[in-house]
């Protein structure tokens, strides 16, 4: 039962990805062609509110629902892994038109062929695990 809240937030996320149309290949194409404000507005709003909220949580020392201190773990320093990994991700994002969250939302929406992309994204993660020691990070 303690998991039901994650299911509910997941459902909310799924509906939001669909109704915002951010899960659509067409919207991603429009974004990478700089032909509409829509996606930039979505990401920009989320980040601005996110910055304010994150700052407030730190400033007011807000605890989580278990009464534990909320910790924002800083990402490891580095350049190559973020730039190269990010670029590889971007190539795939623009090709299929979906990042991992929107992929599963699409599947629920009824685009079952997105299962192919999702399956191979798991394979891609597996391949990274196999070769990670030989990559610059």
């Amino acid at each position: 039962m303690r998991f039901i809240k994650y299911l509910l937030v997941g459902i909310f996320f799924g509906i939001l990805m669909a109704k915002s149309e951010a899960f659509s290949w067409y919207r991603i194409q429009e974004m990478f062609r700089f032909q509409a404000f829509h996606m930039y507005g979505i990401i920009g709003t989320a980040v601005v509110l996110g910055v304010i909220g994150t700052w407030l949580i730190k400033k007011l020392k807000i605890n989580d629902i278990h009464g534990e201190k909320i910790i924002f773990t800083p990402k490891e320093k580095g350049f190559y892994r973020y730039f190269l990994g990010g670029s590889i991700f971007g190539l795939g994002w623009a090709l299929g038109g979906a990042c991992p969250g929107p992929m599963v939302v699409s599947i629920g929406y009824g685009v079952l062929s997105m299962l192919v992309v999702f399956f191979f994204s798991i394979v891609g993660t597996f391949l990274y695990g196999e070769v990670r020691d030989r990559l610059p990070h």
Partner: protein
Amino acid sequence: MWEFLINPWPWWFSGAAISVTMFALILFGRSFGFSSNLRTLCAIATRRKVRFFDFDWKKETWNLIFLVGAIIGGYLANTYMNHGEAVQISQATITDLAALGFGEPSTSSSGVQPDELYAWENVLTIRGVLILAVAGLLVGFGTRYAGGCTSGHAISGLSDLQLPSLIAVIGFFTGGLIMTHLLYPFIF
């Protein structure tokens, strides 16, 4: 109210809803990062025999439940909140895509993903399945290499003003622009 929710959500409402998702997970003592699920699924599939996937994945169960919720959410959005129109993109994009052989978004299919990539008759060709497989491989490989995807870096990381996340997001766009502007003309 319901009328508003059924129609495509405006950008400011959508962006605020993403923030709500992130802060809900933070207040539950978790964090918003979807692609960790790919690593968890690898851990389950390899039964912890590969070092990178040898971790206690049961601690990530909450995120898999979130994933199941996202699938249900997609289903509910199409079944109960469908406004009956395809995605409305700009005329400039429609023109650009037409030059590459893509038709306009149409309700005769999903209305959200192009038939040219996602209709089964195209998926079940060597070329069609290769495109989707490569897209998936790049996303899955890249997101783990970069340590996060759009949710983990562009939303959570930038909200915490993390420099690595900014580098990753610049990477996302570098890759996306190369694919869209340089590679699409060769692929399509």
